[in-house]
């Protein structure tokens, strides 16, 4: 079960969603993707550009499987990558601080979920472009 998000620089703000809860998903800047990306650009100290978001959500909505926090984490990671911002080596804590600084609904136990998402994310997603010159595992 995954949420796959493609974020690209664009002239026009747009959110294209499909999959679980796509109809109920807000298509404005209150979307967690935008909130996460904005927070990432703030941390990077860069101006928040106009972005286009394409979301394919396979995580069931409102079932306790972390679809909301997945959106926030995806936004943060995408924002950090687009901003070209480098977190310190032990960056999962720094990333957790960014995520924890975002105000979301209190009934979502986001902090616990963030940690898991952050770990998974670093293992699987950003890693899809590994520079093998520096590692020989």
């Amino acid at each position: 079960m995954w949420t796959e998000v493609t974020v690209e620089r664009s002239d026009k703000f747009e959110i294209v969603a499909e999959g679980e809860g796509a109809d109920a998903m807000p298509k404005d800047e209150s979307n967690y993707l935008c909130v996460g990306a904005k927070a990432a650009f703030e941390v990077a100290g860069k101006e928040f550009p106009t972005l286009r978001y394409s979301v394919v959500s396979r995580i069931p909505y409102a079932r306790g499987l972390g679809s909301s926090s997945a959106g926030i984490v995806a936004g943060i990671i995408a924002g950090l990558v687009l901003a070209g911002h480098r977190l310190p080596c032990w960056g999962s804590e720094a990333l957790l601080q960014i995520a924890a600084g975002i105000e979301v609904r209190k009934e979502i136990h986001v902090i616990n979920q963030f940690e898991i998402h952050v770990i998974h994310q670093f293992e699987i997603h950003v890693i899809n472009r590994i520079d093998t010159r520096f590692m020989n595992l």
Partner: protein
Amino acid sequence: MSGTRGSADKQFIAAVAAGSAVAGAAIAVAAMKMLSKNNNLERKSRSSVALYNQDEDDYIVMTRKESQVILPHNHEEKMRRRIAQRVAVEQENSTPRKSVTVKVPATSANFGPGCTFRNPRCLIMMFQILLTNLNFFTQL
């Protein structure tokens, strides 16, 4: 006369056999040394990993125990590998990009006693998340 010649032939054959044995042993030892050298090189390259040192803005090459096998409960080694991978990725991420694709998995953090095998929907979800986790273990 023939007895003397016969003993000389036997001595010659014995000498040739001994010489061949010594030469064969020498070749075998040389081959083993070469193989072990290659193995060592391979092990060395597999066990080394680069970590980014933020203070000095440089990479530190670290080695790990060769016999260590990565199992799901081996958290420290897994975390070390994650950091190593992240270092490599962060360097690439420092260059400006126009687009990025991020994939985030579901969480099993909220599964509790209410989620039982009697509920088929729960069972399917648990199975799917288990598959996701297996996928991430195999990617390490």
